[in-house]
C-alpha cells in the first residue's frame, strides 16, 4: 500500500494520486483535515508498529511500502481551523503530526522524503555549504548584522541581492541605492546578502535517477513573484554530467525528490542556489507537460 499524507486537493498530492490511479497501484490518503478526529498509535518493541484510525477506517501503517507527504502548516488548513478551535484540539492535532513524523523517520517504507533529510532547507547558508561540497558553484554569500560589512560586500560585488536566511519564503530582491539607508537595520537581525549572478534560471526536478529540467525566461530577480509578467517556462535538456551531478547531490542529501534552482551564466557557468526537498512541481509540470508526477508515482510503486 502507498500512503499519501496531506490535503487531497493540494496540487502535487492530487497529481501523484491521479498517476497512482493510472498505474492501478493501491494507495490510501491520510487527510490532514481529519486529524482533529484521528487516533494514532505507534509502538516500538522488537519492531515498529503503527496505525491510524479515522471515522470510517483503520489504516495499518505497517502495510505501507512507500509514502509521499506534502504536509501543510496546520494553521493554513481552513477545515481544521474551523473544527479544531480549542487548545485541547490543537494539542491533539500536534500530537498526531508529531507521532506521524516520528513514524516517517523510523519506517522501512520508502519515504519521499524523510523529515530529517529535508531539514537543510531550513537554513540557506547551511544548505549552501552542502551544495558547494557537492561540487556546484555557489554565489558569494554573506550573513551579517554589520551595516559596514554589508556595504563593503555590496561594493566588492557591484550587484547584490538579499533574501531570507531561513526557509521563510521571501522575495529575492536586488539591493538598490535607495536601500542604503535601510542597511543600518541589519544590526537587528542576521541578514543574508548574495552576489548577483546574471543568467538564465533553470529548475531541475530530480526523482531518484530521473531528471526533468525546465528553462525559465524572466527579467525579474525572482521569477516566482512575477505578477502580470509571466515567465516563459520550457522543458529542456541539460548535459549528462550536470544531470549526474544533480542526482548525486540529491542522493548525498538523502532526497528521493527535489527541485534544484540553478542559473546558467552567459559565460557558461552553472550556479546552484537552493535544493527544495518538497517542490511544488505542478507549476512546472503544468507549463511544460513534463511527467514529473508520473515519475514520482513510478518511484513509489517501485518499492
Amino acid at each position, binding site marked *: 500500500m502507498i500512503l499519501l499524507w496531506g490535503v487531497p486537493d493540494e496540487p502535487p498530492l492530487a497529481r501523484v494520486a491521479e498517476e497512482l490511479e493510472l498505474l492501478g497501484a493501491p494507495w490510501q490518503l491520510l487527510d490532514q483535515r481529519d486529524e482533529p478526529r484521528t487516533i494514532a498509535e505507534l*509502538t516500538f518493541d522488537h519492531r515498529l508498529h503503527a496505525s491510524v484510525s479515522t471515522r470510517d477506517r483503520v489504516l495499518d501503517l505497517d502495510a505501507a511500502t512507500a509514502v509521499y507527504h506534502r504536509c501543510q502548516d496546520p494553521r493554513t488548513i481552513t477545515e481544521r481551523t474551523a473544527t479544531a478551535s480549542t487548545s485541547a484540539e490543537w494539542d*491533539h492535532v500536534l500530537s498526531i503530526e508529531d507521532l506521524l513524523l516520528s513514524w516517517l523517520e523510523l519506517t522501512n517504507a520508502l519515504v519521499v522524503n524523510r523529515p530529517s533529510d529535508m531539514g537543510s532547507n531550513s537554513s540557506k547558508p547551511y544548505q549552501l555549504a552542502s551544495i558547494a561540497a557537492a561540487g556546484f558553484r555557489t554565489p558569494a554569500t554573506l*550573513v551579517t548584522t554589520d551595516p559596514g560589512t554589508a556595504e563593503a560586500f555590496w561594493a566588492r560585488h557591484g550587484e547584490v541581492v538579499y533574501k531570507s536566511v531561513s526557509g521563510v519564503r521571501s522575495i529575492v530582491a536586488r539591493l538598490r541605492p535607495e536601500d542604503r539607508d535601510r542597511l543600518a537595520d541589519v544590526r537587528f537581525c542576521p541578514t543574508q546578502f548574495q552576489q548577483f549572478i546574471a543568467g538564465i534560471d533553470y529548475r531541475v526536478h530530480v526523482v531518484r535517477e530521473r531528471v526533468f529540467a525546465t528553462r525559465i525566461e524572466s527579467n525579474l530577480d525572482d521569477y516566482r513573484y512575477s505578477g502580470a509578467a509571466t515567465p516563459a517556462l520550457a522543458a529542456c535538456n541539460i548535459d549528462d554530467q550536470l544531470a549526474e551531478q544533480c542526482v548525486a547531490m540529491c542522493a548525498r542529501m538523502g532526497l528521493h525528490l527535489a527541485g534544484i534552482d540553478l542559473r546558467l551564466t552567459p559565460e557558461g557557468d552553472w550556479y546552484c542556489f537552493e535544493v527544495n526537498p518538497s517542490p511544488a512541481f505542478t507549476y512546472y509540470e503544468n507549463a511544460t507537460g513534463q511527467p514529473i508526477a508520473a515519475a514520482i508515482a513510478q518511484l513509489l510503486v517501485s518499492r
Partner: protein
Amino acid sequence: MLIILASRHDPTAPWLADEWAADEAAVLTCEDLSCAGWEYDVAAPERASIVVGGRSVAQSAIRAVLTRLPSVSPHELPGIVDEDRDYVAQETMAFLLAWLATLGSRAVNRPTPYCLMGPHWRPERWVKVARDLGLATVPVTRKAAPGVPPARASYDLTSVTVVGARAFLSDGSPPSQPQFDAAVRLARAAAADLLAVQFTADDAIADANLWPDLRVTAVQAALRDHLLRAAS
C-alpha cells in the same frame, strides 16, 4: 575562549561561565545576534566574527562552543518589535545553525537542522537506534487520541551522562560497566558528545536527552576538558 550559547533565562549558563572563567568563558544569547558585528562569509567561515556580550570576537579566538539552546523562540528577543519578532527568531535560528555547523567538533553537540543542541530525537528513535546496536531496550508506545492526555509507561530510571568517552551517574560517580558501554555506544551512534541516557533497573535503555545536569562537579569538569580538547 569558550562560548556557552544559551537562553537568556538559563541559570546554568552564567554559572558555567563563572566556573570556566580561567578559560575566558562567556555566555552568548540571542540578544547578541541583534547587535552589529556578526560577519559570516559562507566561503570563508574561518574568518567569521561574532559578538558576545557586546564584544567582537574573531572565530579563530573561539576554542569551543557549548550549546544549551535547542531553538530560537521569539521570547529570546525582547528587544525586537512585536511584529518582527517571529521572523527575526526564525532568521536567527537559521543563521545559528549555519554558523555552528562550521565549527565541526568544536560545537558540542554539533547542531542538526531541527535542534541546535544536536540529535533531539523522540524516545522511539533512541530506543530503535539502541536496539539496532544490539543494546537492551524497553518497548515504547505512544497513542494520540482526542481528549486523552498522552501517557507513557513509567519506569524507575537511572540517568547516565556521557561526555565524550566518559560517563557519570547523577552524583558524579562512574556507572556500571554495562551502562557505561551502552551509553557511550548510543552517544557515538547519535554523534552526540554530550548526552543523558536513561536506563531501567535492569540496564535497558528507555530514552535519552540532550539536557544532562551540568552542575554535577565531575560532569562539569569532564565537559570543560572535552571542550578544551575539541579545540586542539
